[in-house]
């Protein structure tokens, strides 16, 4: 919890999907400070006050005091605009290296009034020569009273692996821009970054499994040979719905055919490529290509092997294995 001193975990809440993390912006953890415009405003007030004293002008005093009070009220409103917000996060969708990862952040405003123009940013200090520059991507969002809102914080992924979220700053200078209130939160999200799909289009030679009949594909025209148990990733139209309707379980119709082919992408098939990242990229590319066909495919890389299969879930399993390779 060392880096999380400002975060308050909410107790498990049925409305929170398991695995979600949340941080509520507790009032005492929200910071507030005048902005540059705010300091300028203060200077203006001082000049006005001097003018009022010098000319002994009551209405000038009035205006000066009114604006000073307005500043004070503005401070409270600015602070209110951020406090009481509950921030939860969910797992971001995996991306390919080089793509922009989107970290979903849920802003739950069930405790408070309408929140205006909040800004979420990640501050990274970039040292260039002697100049410190702050570079950040800012997203702006507003939430109605009692409502929830989801925003996606974009982060550019550069390399395969796991992209962890960094500390984010949520801030607001609504309504008058004289004060800025902010808080930091950490979502502890991890985004899988698959290798960038690159390499040759040519698939490696088909590796026929010994009992390929079991992994046969439905070319459609061939004879029906029986049922087997459903495995995630099986095409929906191969499911024996009639059997399912008789409450005999989820079975998949199997047909015999010459198209029953299975590909195993293994480490040997990419050994000719020099760098490990390029090998992974090649494997990734093959997986994506194969997924578009109706072929079954499996993956065998050092430390992990995945049995042949097909479908989105299977593809993600394989890609995750590639992403996590070496970790």
């Amino acid at each position, binding site marked *: 919890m060392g880096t999380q001193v400002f975060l308050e975990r909410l107790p498990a809440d049925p409305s929170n999907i398991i695995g979600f993390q949340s941080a509520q912006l507790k009032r005492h953890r929200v910071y507030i400070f005048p902005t540059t415009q705010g300091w*300028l405003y203060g200077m203006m007030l001082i000049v006005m006050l001097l003018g009022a004293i*010098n000319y*002994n002008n009551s209405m000038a005093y009035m205006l000066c005091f009114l604006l000073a*009070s*307005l500043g*004070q*009220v503005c401070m409270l409103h600015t602070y209110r605009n951020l406090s009481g917000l509950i921030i939860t996060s969910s797992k971001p969708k995996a991306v390919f290296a080089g793509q922009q990862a989107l970290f979903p952040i849920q802003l739950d405003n069930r405790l408070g009034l309408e929140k*205006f*123009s909040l800004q979420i940013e990640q501050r990274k200090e970039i040292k260039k020569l002697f100049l410190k520059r702050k570079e950040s991507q800012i997203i702006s969002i507003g939430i109605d009273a009692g409502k929830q809102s989801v925003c996606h914080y974009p982060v550019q992924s550069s390399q395969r692996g796991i992209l962890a979220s960094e500390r984010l700053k949520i801030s607001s200078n609504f*309504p008058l821009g004289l004060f800025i209130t902010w808080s930091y939160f950490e979502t502890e999200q991890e985004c899988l970054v698959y290798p960038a799909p690159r390499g040759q289009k040519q698939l490696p030679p088909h590796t026929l499994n010994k009992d390929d009949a079991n992994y046969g594909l439905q070319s459609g025209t061939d004879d029906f040979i029986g049922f087997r148990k459903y495995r995630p990733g099986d095409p929906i139209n191969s499911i024996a719905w009639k059997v399912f309707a008789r409450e005999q379980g989820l079975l998949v119709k199997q047909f015999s055919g010459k198209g029953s082919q299975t590909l195993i992408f293994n480490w040997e098939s990419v050994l000719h490529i020099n760098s490990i990242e390029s090998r992974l990229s090649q494997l990734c590319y093959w997986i994506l290509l194969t997924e578009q066909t109706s072929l079954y495919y499996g993956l065998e890389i050092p430390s992990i092997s995945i049995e042949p299969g097909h479908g989105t879930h299977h593809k993600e399993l394989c890609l995750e294995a590639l992403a996590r390779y070496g970790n």
Partner: protein
Amino acid sequence: MVKRNLNIHQIMWLALGVVLASLPHWHRLPLWIPISHVSLLAARIYIPYQLPAFWSQQKGTINIIRLIIMFTGVASVYGSYGSLTGRDVGVALLVLLAGFKIFESNSKRDFYISSYLGYFLIITNFFYTQTIPTATYMMFVIIIMTTGLIVFNDTEQQLTLLKRFKLSTTLLIQAIPLLLILFILFPRVNGPLWGIPKDAFDGVTGIDDQMSPGTISKLVQSNDVAFRVTFKDKIPEQSKLYWRGPILWHTDGRKWTTGKNKSDLEPSIVEFGGEPIHYDVTIEPSNKKWLFGLEMVSKPPDKTYFTHDFQLKTYEEIRTRKAFSLSSYSTFRLNKEKNSNIERGLMLPGTSHPKTRELASKLRDEFKEPALIIKAALEWLKDKDFVYTLVPPLMTDDMVDEFLFNTRQGFCEHYAAAFTIIMRAAGIPTRIITGYQGGEINPVGNYLIVRQHDAHAWTEVWLENKGWLRIDPTAIVSPIRVSEGINDALPEAIINIPLGLENSETALRLWQELRNTADMINYKWAQWVLGYSPEQQKRFLQHLGFNSIDWKNLTFSLFVFLGIIVAAIAIYIFRKTPETIEPARKYYDIFCKKMAAVGLARRSYEGPVDFAQRILTTRQDLESDTQNITNLYVLIRYCSDDNKLLQLKAAIKSFTPAKIISN
């Protein structure tokens, strides 16, 4: 890169605020300034959103153009005013600058600086006028400008125009308690901290310490209040209300002045008789160093002194409304005078006014006794059909001769000046007293308002053994001026009566009453808001029960009160949003109330079903109703059966449990 980071919406609001803030200045400025101001704003609004690429690379050129525009502006202001300092020039520059700043506004920083210039424009208005209408108008401008800031910060466009307006108003309303605390408790300092521009108090009318034909009749056309008087007892009669101002000794034949400063002279002796009159004078800022007291003030109040000729003077210019407590005696004698002053009272300018001198020597030869000469001169004025008028014909030559023997139409300054010349030529020392005569009673607040149109001039003649005596030649020509006041004396109506009201008496009375109430409000505004000086603050806080008032105590209590109010506002702002009560719950609460009225209150831990069961144990007569209502309520609340809502409403409405006296 010249990038336009502000959208047109933001610029429009900015321009609107600044135009509204500078609007009251326009008639005071040379025409070209408001025109340039508005043109610059219009240019900013209509010039394309993104500058052409060509300009983007010409940052240097753009800066030079900026400098040229700025320099031209400043030079033109110098051309118009012949100076670059002073209040009016400052305002002119500020109006130009605000226009120019918006014209070149491109960034957040520019936006804010322009807004702040707008706030400054508001404050400059108060250096000209601080009336209630001005304050109200400026409040409106502040709301507009604050809305502009909200528009700028509402980047997600979550608020409609109306809601933005509402929010800025809410912010300002919440600021008002803080404003009041600051206004009352902020330790006030007596200004000025540095020099005030010479023209800072221009435009205030009032009696001057010099008089030439036309100065007073010009004043008489002004309805501005000179001062207000609250008498401790009853208000003396009109003809006794001579408010003494500057005393004029010296003339060049046309213009009268106080002459050389005679500060070395001590005030001569005065004897009083009769009962003293106690009263408070609240004087409007006049930028002059004197105040007006009822003839004759017995003792100068604090921070004032008497000149040798009994003018009440202050040490500093009256630049804010000030109040003085005075006592006067209507019977008095100024019976000692130094020889040098008696000689001054006989001085005549060179050889001018030959005809008047001739008349004077004729009178002197005929009557010999000064008292008789005075009487004869006044009678001569009375006999010769002089006309008392605001608009005398133009006199160019020898003003006194022409008036006395030719035109015979004049205002009080003509009569006072001509009479003084006759007296001096006849060997009787005479001086002119300027000030006000009369006043208007405001029955709403029961005080006397003395307006600029009550300005008057009269004379004092020196008689051996009797001292200085007041002679008002105007009273001879137009007795009604002194007995009834100026409004009745002049054929030209001075009070501004709206058209169509002249003939209806009720309407006129109503109008008068309205005017009186308005003046009362203005008086209080001026007394409590505009005149809130360090002294007033001290008096007010002592009245509230503060004992020792120094800046340390004030600052301490200021922060304490501010803290309390900020906390209160914070509690209000951070309050929990009230849970929306479901309609079913609302109706059920009515049912519970009805039951409580017959002695069966629902306990806090009781659910609706338990409650119903408890009711049934004691009140079998309510069985069907209770069960019906409870069932409906449970269905709506826990089975989301909203269709039954109307049924529930009807059932509860018709439910009237009878009271049973338990035996």
